């Protein structure tokens, strides 16, 4: 039986759109519209999709930045909806870590690096200055930074180093789950591998679970055990990374893979066709009826606009939401 650390069940998040002097609600942005996923201990789940897919919104709910409109998050079996704010702060928050996309804006430019890394400890524990200092030094070494530089300011470090600082901060409280929102996309190409390798090493060492948000499929394949392909607030395909990439079933997954492959001119000559999707992602305020993807799908049938396909397991935990499969 898999050791599930976190489970999201039927999560929904709608944002009201208000207009006018009296701020009437004229519509809803259906950012996340019924998704379910599990994250096992020591494994990585990646949420993949393009902008507007709802991946960041999902992450925000896990991080308690937003409350779900409906649905539940279970952490180690406990229903988070049933915990009080104090309980959440004491029992759930310290088990989380967060790394954001932009290493330039994710740290207070006026705080020294040691204070940046120490903040989770200061807010959540009663450790004294000495204990905190040594923990900060420990963390810096873990992520490959020289503790001598703890007194410097973030702007004195490079982008890659700042992301390491962010990782150190995320690890401060010995979390079980770290949520990473596009951890390497803002970094230079030659630095990305450094950070990805660091993350994998830490995962192995501390049995960390990761929830990664990414749009780059190659990065996702390198880092993940499980992948959820999202489109317009719903999951189109879900499964073990290797299953998904070797045997993509959903037309959207196939299009994403095609767009991410390195197609050399000679591959085209050999007949490898690129899948080019027409149009753009519709607004989450007005998602298409039936299958949300059908308006851009190259394999769409008339029925696709009428019924909403459910996410069905086609074997070995590989789930697809498509009536063609």
């Amino acid at each position, binding site marked *: 039986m898999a050791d599930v650390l976190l489970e999201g069940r039927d999560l929904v998040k709608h944002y009201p759109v208000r207009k006018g002097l009296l701020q009437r609600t004229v519509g809803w942005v259906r950012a996340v519209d019924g998704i379910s996923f599990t994250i096992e201990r020591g494994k990585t789940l990646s949420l993949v999709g393009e902008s507007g897919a709802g991946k960041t919104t999902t992450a925000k709910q896990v991080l308690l*930045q937003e409350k779900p409109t409906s649905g539940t998050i279970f952490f180690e079996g406990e229903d988070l909806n049933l915990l009080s704010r104090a309980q959440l702060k004491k029992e759930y928050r310290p088990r*989380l870590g*967060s790394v954001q996309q932009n290493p330039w*804006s994710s740290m207070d430019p*006026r705080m020294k690096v040691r204070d940046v890394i120490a903040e*989770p400890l200061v*807010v*959540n524990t009663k450790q004294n200055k000495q204990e905190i200092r040594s923990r900060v030094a420990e963390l810096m070494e873990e992520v490959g930074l020289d503790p001598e530089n703890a007194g410097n300011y973030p702007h004195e470090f490079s982008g890659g180093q700042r992301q390491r600082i962010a990782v150190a901060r995320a690890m401060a409280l010995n979390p079980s789950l770290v949520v990473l929102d596009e951890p390497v996309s803002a970094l230079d190409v030659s630095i990305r591998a450094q950070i990805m390798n660091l993350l994998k090493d830490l995962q192995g060492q501390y049995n960390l679970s990761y929830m990664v948000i990414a749009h780059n499929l190659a990065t996702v394949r390198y880092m993940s055990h499980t992948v959820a392909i999202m489109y317009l607030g719903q999951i189109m395909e879900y499964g073990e990374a290797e299953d998904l990439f070797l045997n993509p079933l959903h037309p959207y997954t196939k299009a994403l893979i095609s767009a991410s492959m390195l197609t050399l001119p000679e591959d085209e000559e050999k007949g490898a066709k690129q899948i080019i999707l027409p149009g753009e992602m519709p607004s989450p305020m007005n998602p298409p009826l039936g299958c949300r993807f059908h308006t851009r799908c190259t394999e769409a049938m008339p029925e696709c606009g009428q019924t909403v396909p459910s996410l069905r397991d086609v074997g070995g935990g590989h789930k697809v939401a498509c009536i063609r499969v």
Partner: protein
Amino acid sequence: MDTTKFIDFDKLERRARPKRIFFQLTFIIPVVVLFVVVILAIFGPLLAPYPYDQINMSARLLPPFSTEDGGASHLLGTDHMGRDVLSRVIYGAQISISIAVLVIFITASIGTVVGIIAGYMGGRTDAFLMRITDISLAFPPILIAILLAATLGPGYWTVIIALSFLGWAPYARLIRGEALRLSEADFVAQARIIGASPIRVMIRHIFPNIINPLIIMITLAVGMIILTEAVLSYIGAGIPPPSPSWGAMVEEGRPYIDSSWWISFFPGAAIGLVVMAGNFLGDWLRDKLDPRLRQI
């Protein structure tokens, strides 16, 4: 064709070397002026040759650089009561600077607190605080000051209250804007994620990052406050004679302006110099700090 001969390399290389701060006159001159005024304010009574209220009707209306028969010299002349203008200007510095410091302290403190709370907390708190701020901004400050003076009677503390009563509102507006912008920043979201309380976020994260625009506002306010006090004293709603407030001095010298111009001129020049110094310094600071204002 060799385009390099059109490029003045020496000029460009010189530009590449760091310019020393001291060669920037727009910084040096205002700082010197303000420094002198502050010294005068602190050590005035020791530096002034005469007490400010020493009346000597036999030595009245003496022009600058004159010496009395008894040997007493008056560098800037005497006024209609025989009081030494230079000494009065020096004592006046004390009044101007102390008022400026007090008013700035009160208005900047209130304004910053209101601004940060409004900007960060948002929602109804923001709406409520901003309505109060808007109402305060809508009143003409001089008019209110006159009303207060009429109610409380003119005097030193009346001026302080009059200038502080509405003076916090511009700070609140500006700081609220900055706080609002900062609240969206990633590092603020991070602080919330790890469970920091709103108070901690406001004190530890928002406040240190609004210090730059705050300093600029304060520097520009110095001139404004001194000028307003001078105007109030000039129209009689400020500090009344025999106090050597620069504004009151200008007013007192008004009837004698065509003959004994120095009585109004020197205090007026003092006002002008200090106001300009404050403005130049504020502008210089803004230019210096501006790209770094947007540190994110």
